[in-house]
């Protein structure tokens, strides 16, 4: 029994001496002592000495939360030659000293918590962790820059990696961008080579136009079903010549890639550099699929690649690790009437603006008003549309990238069209990042962009112009600008597919559907669910440099995992007491991991030998939730480390 002061964290409200004395006489306790910092190296060595001196078989530590230092004390126990699972921790800091002010009261509670820990320890049995093999292949879900970079890095380390991308091409949002801040280099120029690398890499397999259907298993041993949507074009045969797209008579579908600023054919590739360069048929738009008549593409395809009969295909594969890189979308602006987004075509989002700027975009890079294709003279940028908002249609968080890309847009405009007036309405300009503030200052100082501290209250289409009413907080006045083009910087949100994926992966998510990291500071690229890693915006808003950095970090974590031959499992797994088992299958039905199977087995039950149908737990699959233990009516199923008797002993000790 070791009681920690945690400096004054515990000792200030809990009489550590009293706790030590009170538990000294508990059954099984042979040593009781206390110290300033149990977690320090010095004290850990005295734990070792105590174990050796008194031949201890178990240790109770009264200290901070087991979530903090349980591994530390287990290691110390193991180092002392004890079974590491013969350690119990009474949480007398987070759950006692920190929440209670009255010292006698807190002391009394600490004693009870310590007794409960002793009661549990008395029933502890040495446990040995099982081992499970690692499938040396990773799955990356999402083929944007995050996914591509992660896959490239994993493949570079020599492991096989698959990318599943739900759209027909990899590339993601970055492929849509024109220039990138703060260096203003061309997005496509830096992304396309990576896309090509990914396609060419021997170790990388691309599943585009595909989605994850189901995920089973656990770290090191995931089984994933991937649904390959029918492209209606045979990828093996297609040469990517593009004739089918030219000839397709259905050309009225809004181009997703161009943010609806142009149309595309029913058989299409999203953009010229798409990878793979194999078209897909949008069956909703295709005349052949809708009416049965047409078939032009089939006729013009010399490679005979068009296949109207193609069906979705389910591919089942094994992975050791899974990386979520599902990215983001700008939020829908339907609920922001004040900016007239749905009323005027000249109110656009910044992603639409990217397409307008882009030389490969619908206007070949000419920034023109979508309504009349005139060059705008006065352009207003509105920041924080839906970001940092606590009302229903917005997001509470800062979307992080808007300040910088708006500065970029303003700068590009002023550079290309020196005659324009560019206003940026901001609440705050946030530029933490290397060369970011300098970049923003250039927009103000060198490019004469009008930065106005204030918010646009109203945009009203008026005689072919946009009347922008806003406040200028510094001047303390309301200003009205007659603008030609208004560019909104919408908040970004996780891709809607993330929620379902999170459930499949059993990876936890926050209220905004961003994946939660295992630790916000110390484990930022891992999900709390073992074997699931996070890359890119699916974890939280971030720009390209951050995304690439995180992608690399996620890759290194994956590589670390895949480089192991075996994983040491959690020894706190379910266990079936065979003579008690009824073979009723209830546990099998509630096990989320499919860890329980039934087998006919000879059972020796108090003098009777019979062949019975009994449950058997796959220790590698079992994650130790305990659902089976409660479902089991006979109590045959128990959970090591949290046995029925142990929990009841704790209850008893607490209620004594």
């Amino acid at each position: 029994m070791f009681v920690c002061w945690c400096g004054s964290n515990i000792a200030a409200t809990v009489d550590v001496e009293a706790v030590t004395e009170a538990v000294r006489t508990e059954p099984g306790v042979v040593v009781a002592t206390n110290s300033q910092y149990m977690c320090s190296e010095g004290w850990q060595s005295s734990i070792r000495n105590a174990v050796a001196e008194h031949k201890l078989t178990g240790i109770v530590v009264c200290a901070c939360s087991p979530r903090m230092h349980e591994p530390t004390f287990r290691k110390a126990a193991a180092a002392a030659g004890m079974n590491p699972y013969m350690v119990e921790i009474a949480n007398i800091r987070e759950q006692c000293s920190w929440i209670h002010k009255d010292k006698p009261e807190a002391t009394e509670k600490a004693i009870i918590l310590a007794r409960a820990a002793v009661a549990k320890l008395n029933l502890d049995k040495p446990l040995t962790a099982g081992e499970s093999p690692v499938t040396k292949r990773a799955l990356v879900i999402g083929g944007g820059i995050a996914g591509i970079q992660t896959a490239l890095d994993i493949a570079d380390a020599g492991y096989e990696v698959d990318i599943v991308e739900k759209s027909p091409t990899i590339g993601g949002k970055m492929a849509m961008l024109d220039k990138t801040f703060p260096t203003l280099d061309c997005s496509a120029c830096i992304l396309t080579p990576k896309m090509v690398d990914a396609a060419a890499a021997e170790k990388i397999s691309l599943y585009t136009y595909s989605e994850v259907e189901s995920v089973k298993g656990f770290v090191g041993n995931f089984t994933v079903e991937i649904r390959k949507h029918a492209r209606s074009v045979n990828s093996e045969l297609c040469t990517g010549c593009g004739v089918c797209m030219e000839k397709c008579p259905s050309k009225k579908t809004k181009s997703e890639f161009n943010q609806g600023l142009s149309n595309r054919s029913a058989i299409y590739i999203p953009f010229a550099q798409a990878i793979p360069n194999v078209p897909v048929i949008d069956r909703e738009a295709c005349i052949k699929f809708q009416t049965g008549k047409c078939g032009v593409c089939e006729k013009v395809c010399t490679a005979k690649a068009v296949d109207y009969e193609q069906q979705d295909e389910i591919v089942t594969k094994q992975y050791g690790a899974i990386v979520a890189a599902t990215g983001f979308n700008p939020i829908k602006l339907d609920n922001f009437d004040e900016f007239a987004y749905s009323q005027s075509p000249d109110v656009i989002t910044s992603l639409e603006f990217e397409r307008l700027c882009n030389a490969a975009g619908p206007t070949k890079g000419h920034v023109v008003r979508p309504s009349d294709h005139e060059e705008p003279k006065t352009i207003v940028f509105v920041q924080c549309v839906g970001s940092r908002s606590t009302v229903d249609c917005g997001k509470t968080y800062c979307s992080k990238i808007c300040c910088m890309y708006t500065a970029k847009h303003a700068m590009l405009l002023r550079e290309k069209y020196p005659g324009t007036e560019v206003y940026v309405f901001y609440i705050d300009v946030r530029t933490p990042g290397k060369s970011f503030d300098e970049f923003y200052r250039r927009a103000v100082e060198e490019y004469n962009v009008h930065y106005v501290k204030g918010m646009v209250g109203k945009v009203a289409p008026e005689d072919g112009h946009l009347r922008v009413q806003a406040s200028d907080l510094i001047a303390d006045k309301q200003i009205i600008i007659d603008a030609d083009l208004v560019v909104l910087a919408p908040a970004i949100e996780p891709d809607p597919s993330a929620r379902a994926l999170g459930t499949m992966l059993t990876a936890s998510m926050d209220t905004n559907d961003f994946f939660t990291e295992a630790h916000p500071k110390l484990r930022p690229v891992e999900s709390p669910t073992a074997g699931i890693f996070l890359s890119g915006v699916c974890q939280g808003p971030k720009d390209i440099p951050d995304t690439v950095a995180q992608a690399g970090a996620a890759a290194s974590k994956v590589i670390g995992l895949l480089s192991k031959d075996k994983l040491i499992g959690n020894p706190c797994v379910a266990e079936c007491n065979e003579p008690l088992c009824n073979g009723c299958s209830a546990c099998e039905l509630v096990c989320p991991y499919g860890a329980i199977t039934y087998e006919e087995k000879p059972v020796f039950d108090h003098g009777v030998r019979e062949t019975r149908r009994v449950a058997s737990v796959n220790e590698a699959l079992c994650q130790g939730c305990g659902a089976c233990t409660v479902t089991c009516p006979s109590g045959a199923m128990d959970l090591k480390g949290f046995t029925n008797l142990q929990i009841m002993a704790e209850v008893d000790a607490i209620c004594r």
Partner: protein
Amino acid sequence: MPIDEKGTFRPKIVAFCCNWCSYAGADLAGSSRLNYPADIKIIRVPCSCRVNPLFMLRAFQRGADGVIMCGCHPGDCHYTSGNYFARRRMTLLFGMLDYLGIEKGRTRVEWVSAAEGQKFAGTMNQFAETVKSLGECRRIEDLRCKESVG
């Protein structure tokens, strides 16, 4: 009846908390220094689905005046589905206890995430208050466990 020197009733309350959400939520309440009564003692379980109705009854047998179970929010279970099973089990158990005339206020289930230290402390304060107002548990107790002798 356990009464402190100020003459107020001090209930015994057992809280089962799942390791991943609620126990972490309790830790957060601790690190945020959010106060709740010392009458509440937490038992850590891997998942709310590990909480057997037997344990709840056991607590009452041993003299608990209230038992609360906390788990991850539905949809957030670390083990995907544990809290769904726990939810059904507890709903039915509470219905049965109520049917037997045991006061409803003595049992409770609350979903507390790792981020909800505030909610954890709030829930505990509220629950302790309810249990306190109900007084000592008489309807489901084992007299043998209450005796000072034996």
